[in-house]
């Protein structure tokens, strides 16, 4: 699903489903993070950060907790990798159905996210590789900045149709206002 009417400004997509794996570390943080870094191919992103590690996208969620987005095909293997690397210091949970990803493309995404929102999406410090959790039009949402022209928004699937509609309408207005 996409509203490609104004791709020059901002467009929305609901990408193909992916696997979302949440993992949490409760002990041996340094060692666990080192094992995970080795297993995943890079260090875990810091607070409010995200990063590409190989084919997976890692997103910091909250203290000692991360989300891994990977392809459906790689999901089981990644879950096993996480579980093994975590050992006794943490655990991983498949929550692929708990969040729906919406992708917002185009240079207007920062403006779009200010509409009905309460988050400073226009801050230059909210750069690629940053994440944030906020509310838009009463809907809970997490942002993951992919690039200057692209941001992913994760929201519970039950909220996503209305949020998608809300953003599509706002995107139309932005386009018409040009």
């Amino acid at each position: 699903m996409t509203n490609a009417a104004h791709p020059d400004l901002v467009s929305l997509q609901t990408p193909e489903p992916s696997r979302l794996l949440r993992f949490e570390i409760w002990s041996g943080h340094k060692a666990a993070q080192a094992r995970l870094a080795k297993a995943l191919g890079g260090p875990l992103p810091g607070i409010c950060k995200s990063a590409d590690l190989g084919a997976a996208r890692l997103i910091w969620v909250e203290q000692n907790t991360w989300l891994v987005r990977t392809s459906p095909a790689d999901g089981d293997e990644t879950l096993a990798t996480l579980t093994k690397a975590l050992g006794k210091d943490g655990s991983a949970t498949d929550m692929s159905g708990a969040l729906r990803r919406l992708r917002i493309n185009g240079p207007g995404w920062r403006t779009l996210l200010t509409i009905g929102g309460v988050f400073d999406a226009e801050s230059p410090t909210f750069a690629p590789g940053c994440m944030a959790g906020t509310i838009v039009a009463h809907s809970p949402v997490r942002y993951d900045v992919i690039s200057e022209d692209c941001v992913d928004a994760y929201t519970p699937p039950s909220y996503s149709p209305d949020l998608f509609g809300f953003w599509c309408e706002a995107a139309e207005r932005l386009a018409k206002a040009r």
Partner: protein
Amino acid sequence: MSGPIRLADGGLIDRSRAVSFVFDGQTYQGYGGDSLASALLANGVVLFGRSFKYHRPRGVMAAGIEEPSALVQAGSGGRYEPNSRATDVFIYDGLQSQSQNRWPSLGFDLGGLNSLISPFIPAGFYYKTFFGGPKLWLLYEHLIRQMAGLGMPPTKADADIYEHRAAFCDVLVVGSGPAGLAAALSASAAGSRVILAEQDERLGGSLLTDPATIDGQASDLWIAKARETLMAAGGRILTRTTAAGYYDHDLVNLVERLTEPGQTPGADGLAQRLWRVRAGKVILATGAFERPRLFEGNDLPGVMLSGAVRTYLRRYGVRAGSRAVITTDNDDAYRTALALAEAGASIAAILDSRPADGVHSALVQKAMAQLPVHFGAKLIAAKGSAKGLKGASALIEGKVTALDCDLIAVSGGFSPVVHLHMQAGGTLAWDEISGSFSPDQTRQNQTTVGAAAGADGLSATLLSGWSKASAKAKAKAAPTCASDDDVALNIIADWEPAPQASLKKAFVDYQNDVTAADLDLAWREGYRSVEHLKRYTTLGMATDQGKTSNLVGLARLAKSEGRPVPSVGLTTFRPPYTPVTLGVLAAEATGAHLDPRRRPVLYQTHAAEQPIWQPVGYWHRPRAYPMGNENLHQAAHRESLTVRTKVGVTDVSTLGKFDLSGPDAATFLELICATTVGKLAVGRGRYTIMLREDGMVMDDGTVWRTEENRFLLTSSTGGADRMAAHLSYVRKVIAPHLKVAVANVQEHWAAVAVAGPLAKDVVAAVLPKMAVPRHMSLDVGDLAGVPTLTLAASYSGERAFEIYAPSDQIAPVWAAIAKAAREIGGCLYGLEALEILRIEKGHIVVGGEIDGRASPHDLGLSKMLRPAGGYIGATALQRPAFAEPGRLQMVGFEAVDGSAIPEGSMVLTAPKTLPVGHVTAAGLNVIKGGSIALGFLRDGFSRTGESLIAWSPTRNQTAEVKVTAPVFYDVAGVQYRD
């Protein structure tokens, strides 16, 4: 020629762009950049409206948002807007405007008869006149409302779109006059992210009226350069934008008007935008309002504030009169006199209430050299009608002197605009000489600059803005102005009218028709508090909020009290100070976006069955699946009966679900749950309740041990978010040491419940390879390739199962189960049947019996509590109050005569007695028939068998009920076991 005229040249209007508009049915021409007020004045119109109470003819008094009198209605249909200030509407082609509060016409208004009986209808007259019962008051109110008021409210739905935007900045500057621009430049130069908000359509503030030379260049060039500089640095400049409210943590709401009242928006359809700005620092450069003065007839068309006269002249090229009288207590009005004289008007007199023996500024001396200046002089009365002024009388050198004039320019000093500062929690300091309050202490990270801070003169204003905006700002780098432009006000506040003036026609609050005599009367009648005075007289109310009147009124009260002005107090500065349309407050939250509609993953599947939907918080869930012509009641009864006798299928995907894993998961759960759950064997589950720290039940659900170190916790749909927050709090604050991960998997898992005597058959049919689990056990299976988790748990009281699957794979699971159930006579059932069944079984629900006030004891769940304690709320449960008599305890009610028990009704021992309890949920006994209910009754556990009355005054229903145990079906609990 008398009256206002457009000058041949001059002003900031675009004379190359003619604009056609309509006022009271007549078409006029103006120019681009004209306000409605300036365009009407340019066309010789002096009568703009009728006053609130006496329907006195009113012209235009001000040139900005402080205008109290010239209120018009603009637009039509869905774009109709009443009470717009003619001074704050910029004309556009096709503008339709009308005067208001008059009948049959503005020129001939029968309501003007009120003016003749004004001696009999002073302030508060209705309190003394309209006596009688409440019904009589309704009649009075109707009549008063017909006679008084402002514009008519809109009757059509708003046709436009509004939007909320979030914005953040280091420095928000409100106001773009010289102080505001200097502040914005200073902050920007220091590297701050700046937002500059200006309610006018142009930047410049007072510089638009009084051009100056700043930093060696004409002020219009300086303004343009400032704009460029700010934009180049990434600043955001919002014109036509009013700061409507200042809230905690430096949150300021800005209302940006993208269209004028009644105007059709651009392609995006947006009429207005509400910016919610969180600023690191707020600079208030809101300027000052000029005050009127007290004299008889000070509200007549042709009496204007001095600064406004100059604004019309300099900005709009409109000379408001040809022969003017100036009355003032400060130097600023001399600029008006000189400007009018330069524009060809004659000056009948400058009446300066200050003494003649003072030191005169260069400006005053210049005026004295060419104009008739009288010190110690006051205006007594303006004379005129709806058609304009015919003259005035003044007290000059102790003599009453007649003056010929068609314009009176009034300057009673200036009041800094401090409302945002006060909304931010600030305090004020009083200056007796100038008679003004200016900001003193601040409570938030805000500062006030320029005229709003009491700065006097352009040089001080520029320096104030520049230096206060940034700690890095150096005073030497501040913008400077030419010395000729640096005019100080030299106010010597004089509140006293001439003794010869009749105070009954000396208006203090023009919008609400409050005179000085009204204030004196209110004081004589005992209204000494300014808050009481305000409400008795209506001083400072309505859309005006006392912009020009409050201080004059305070001074009048202070005089009566014989006290200084600050000691009589201030009224509260509530947002919004300037009217804000309701549309922009609601913005997107209308229609489909009133609130989000949370759709269960099977929403479309349900929609195909055409159910009756029920909002449950944001969720929308099927309430019932009517067949044929069934109504809700019939459908729900059929569905619940089918569950009791055969099998029913329902969607329970919205339940709260949490995955808890780790070696300390059981320990963590024993903190959360008030029942024993830690010793559950793998593959077993248990019903549980969760308490708040105060011991009250906050939710209920089930706990399932899926692996040795992994549990699934379910909670109610309505309480899911609260439970998520509770788990997070306990995990991070109370038990950060535990080795446990808590994941909210509410929407990862979807679930289908199958309930009824044939439920086991359905499960066996769809999951043939899985052994059907016994009650409170679980097993995993595979349904058409979809991995499933089957929990044997019952909410309905029947043998029942909840079959879980990943939400993106639940559709085939639902389809298979629904098909299998229907094949053996089963049906789908919705929330209404679920409610009926759970009431019959006596199961509690969040929002019903779990209302935040009930302890486990009150709910009859004491035996479930873990004896060893250790769970959240356990300590609080030891409070003696929980065991004292008189507590509301959960019971059942049965209707004695079969009549319906009204839900939410009070429970009484006899008619007209105090309630002893209430009904939380009511329904039908599915098989036996009759009405049953759950509820709370004082000392209810010991009152079984008692006859009471359930009474709902709001539904006008009564039912005689008998107290029972809160279980009406299968008390022994055999139905849900094999």
